[in-house]
């Protein structure tokens, strides 16, 4: 069997340089290394793998939903199980898969793509992962113990409140959401700082790759969207735990406060998933069209505009609540307006492909599937953006069809594309193209056969979240068709998993740049070494790998004896300062555990909000404890002496 050799192609200026870097950046060995790793690549891989595990669980729940609805008056699941399963499906896909996988893949890719050695706050990054993992395990522990949430993924009060949802089910939901939001906010901050302050010299803003732009905008959206739901979920938890009345109308509270706070997060969340997906497409299309991106600046402006407009749409989820007409008109206009920047991107992608010489490998196929489905999902989005139409199809399967076209089409398809595209970089091996094409076609057909009939079911009056229906409704045939489609999707995912398992051992060796791509991650070995680049690259154009001369322009003078990273200026990426990046540490894990104690304990007793932080204190002291002092970092007296 062929083994992966580190295909290091750079000739270092100082022959001992690479050995020093290896020594400085090496992770702890074995299991300890697993617990203490702060390398953005190992944390990122783990993050992506965990998110995909939740994707599979969410998929199994979707299969259960489809089997239950395959025929009228089915008794496969009882109403209570059905409520838990559709809530788990939505919660898993949105909170444990969608947002985390976006941020996880960015955690892996962004430092490589901007040409730095690690993410800005590597320990915080590891901490974020552990908090997310605890949240996910908590939700599924609850589900296994028949305490799975059952009020839908947006948990409307009063249904989710203490009166109509006694027991702990909705507490489990509320705290899971809190865990995932903490993790997302952390990732958002560190990605912004990595992008703004750690770009390789020369990568001024106008030379920044489109995916990096997409992640920058997404991270800002995260910063302003996530606090809203984290606050709301804590209000819900306190309403249920200590008898506050935020959402209780009998005591002056207001259920609409929940809806506003939830959708102020919930709608931007769609763009938290879509923008990085669009970023994937904008990276992949030029590589396979074998030409530069058409309308780079227009795409950047579209990404930024989408980020802003995404905060002006949330009320269109509430059109059926009797809003003032002026507000309905405003939010309709905003909802339709977002079609403009989206359209700009679609036309730029098409123009790039049109003017290029497309190579139809699996990543491009998934991107093409994405464009087709995104346009369809976007059109139904414009339809439901209009109040009269929305009133007709509100809470029906039409909305289910729309949101799945958008989420699966405009998010999961580009994600698969990205997986096929970057798998060689991450593992050093290619995925099988043949299996990839099976994967794509089964998925494309499956998604359309599953979700297209739902438009009709919705217009025929089938409401969301009903666990069964009578034969007289006439919904049976289309539901059976949708279930058959779901089975195709399942088959496609099995092919995907098989492809990964096979390719990890026997896939062809990737080499440094198997696709002839243009961004900086393709200028280092596959998989990249722990320090990413032997010499930090210098960027001289928008397509650094395509445009570079025979000699790679590099940075010198960065210490290889310590984990030094180069901090650059925001606009022009000129060298600004040098910063020491921390090494492996157990404290992120030990600090995440008290967060678990706080929020999990918090569903049983308010004292957890005292005990958890008290346990957190020693962990934070350990985290902040001064490290071994490097030579030029001694205390001021020692320097004087």
């Amino acid at each position, binding site marked *: 069997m062929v083994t992966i050799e580190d295909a290091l*192609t*750079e*000739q*270092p*200026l100082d022959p001992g340089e690479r050995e020093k870097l290896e020594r400085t950046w090496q992770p702890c060995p074995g299991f300890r290394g697993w617990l203490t790793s702060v390398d953005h690549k190992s944390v990122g891989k783990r993050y992506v793998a965990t998110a995909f595990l939740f994707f599979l669980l969410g998929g199994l729940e979707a299969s259960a939903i489809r089997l239950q609805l395959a025929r009228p008056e089915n008794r496969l699941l009882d109403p209570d199980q059905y409520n838990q399963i559709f809530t788990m499906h939505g919660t898993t896909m949105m909170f444990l898969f969608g947002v985390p996988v976006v941020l996880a893949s960015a955690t892996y890719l962004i430092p490589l793509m901007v040409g730095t050695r690690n993410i*800005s*706050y590597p320990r915080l990054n590891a901490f974020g992962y552990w908090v997310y993992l605890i949240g996910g395990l908590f939700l599924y522990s609850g589900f296994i113990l028949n305490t799975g949430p059952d009020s839908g993924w947006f948990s409307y009060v009063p249904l989710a409140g203490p009166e109509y949802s006694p027991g702990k089910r909705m507490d489990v939901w509320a705290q899971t959401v809190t865990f995932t939001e903490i993790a997302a906010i952390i990732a958002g*901050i*560190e990605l*912004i*700082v990595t992008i*703004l*302050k750690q770009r390789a*010299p020369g990568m001024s803003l106008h030379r920044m790759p489109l995916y990096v732009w997409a992640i920058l905008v997404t991270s800002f959206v995260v*910063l302003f969207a*996530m606090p*809203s739901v984290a*606050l709301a979920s804590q*209000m819900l938890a*306190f309403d249920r735990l*200590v008898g*506050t*009345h*935020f959402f*209780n*109308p009998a*005591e*002056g*509270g*207001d259920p609409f*406060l929940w809806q506003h*706070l939830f959708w*102020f997060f919930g709608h931007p969340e769609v763009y938290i998933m879509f923008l990085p997906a669009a970023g994937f497409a904008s990276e992949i299309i030029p590589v396979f069209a074998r030409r530069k991106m058409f309308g780079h600046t227009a795409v950047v402006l579209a990404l930024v505009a989408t980020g802003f407009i995404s905060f002006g749409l949330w009320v269109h989820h509430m059109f059926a609540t009797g809003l003032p007409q002026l507000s309905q008109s405003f939010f309709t206009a905003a909802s339709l307006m977002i079609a403009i920047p989206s359209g700009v991107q679609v036309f730029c992608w098409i123009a790039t492909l049109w003017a290029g010489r497309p190579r139809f490998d699996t990543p491009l196929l998934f991107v093409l599937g994405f464009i087709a489905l995104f346009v369809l999902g976007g059109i139904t989005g414009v339809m439901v953006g209009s109040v009269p139409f929305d009133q007709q199809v509100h809470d029906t399967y039409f909305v289910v069809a729309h949101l799945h076209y958008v989420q699966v089409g405009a998010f999961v398809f580009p994600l698969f594309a990205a997986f096929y595209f970057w798998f060689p970089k991450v593992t050093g091996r290619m995925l099988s193209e043949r299996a990839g094409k099976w994967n794509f076609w089964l998925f494309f057909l499956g998604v359309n056969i599953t979700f297209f009939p739902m438009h009709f079911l919705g217009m025929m009056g089938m409401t969301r979240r009903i666990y069964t229906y009578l034969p007289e409704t006439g919904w049976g045939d289309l539901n059976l068709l949708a279930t058959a489609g779901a089975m195709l999707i399942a088959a496609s995912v099995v092919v995907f998993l098989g492809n990964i398992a096979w390719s990890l051992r026997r896939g062809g060796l990737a080499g440094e740049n198997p696709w002839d791509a243009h961004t900086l991650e393709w200028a280092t070995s596959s998989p990249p070494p722990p320090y990413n680049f032997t010499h930090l690259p*210098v960027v001289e154009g928008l397509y650094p790998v395509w445009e570079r001369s*025979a*000699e*790679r*322009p*590099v*940075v*010198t*003078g*960065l210490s290889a004896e310590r984990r030094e990273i180069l*901090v650059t200026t*925001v606009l022009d990426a000129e*060298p*600004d*300062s*040098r*910063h*020491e990046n921390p090494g492996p540490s157990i404290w992120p894990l030990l600090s995440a555990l008290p967060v678990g104690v706080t929020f999990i304990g918090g569903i049983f007793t308010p004292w957890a909000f005292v005990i958890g932080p008290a346990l957190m*204190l020693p962990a934070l002291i350990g985290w902040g404890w*001064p490290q071994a*002092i490097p030579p*030029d*970092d*001694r*205390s*001021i*007296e020692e320097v004087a002496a």
Partner: protein
Amino acid sequence: MSEVRRVHDVSGVPTHAFSHHNLVWWGTVGFIVVEGFTLFLMMASYLYLRLNELDWPPGDTRLPELLIPTINTLLLLVTIVPMAKASHAAHHSDRLAVARWLWLATALSAVSSVLRVFELRGLNVRWDSNAYGSAAWGLLILHTTLLVVDLFETGAFAVLFQLGHAQRKHFPDVSDAADYQYYLSVIYVPIYLILFWGPRLL
């Protein structure tokens, strides 16, 4: 094998930098934005719930006390002074001066945290009495959590600098901690106005 060409030699680039030259400053700003926006949303929620009532505070709920919150708001603003002095001393790498000003700031923050107990009592409503009480407690507790975290951070830095364990990289950290303290003090002004003047004026 491809050869490499030196373009930038960064060995002369500083290893310790203040403000926006320093990565940690950016993280501090990030958390200020997130926490500040969370507080803003909590204030908005308080005002949103106000719309549901004819009277504010509703029914026979008593008005909140004014004296201690006013004193505490001023105290929080005064705390800016020693933190600014500590930051100034940090810029001049004056370890003992940093420690001295940090101790004063810690002491003032500790007094603020104790006064906060009386502020909560002085709301004259329980969190579970009505939505007004829930919103008032929610807003005040949220700020208190940040206040206590900041108290521990300032205290930890004071110890670090007093005992001489501080490294050069900690000087910029003090400056960042000062920025955080400014935010925490300034954002309390609208919270104070909403919580304690709001029921009198709205």
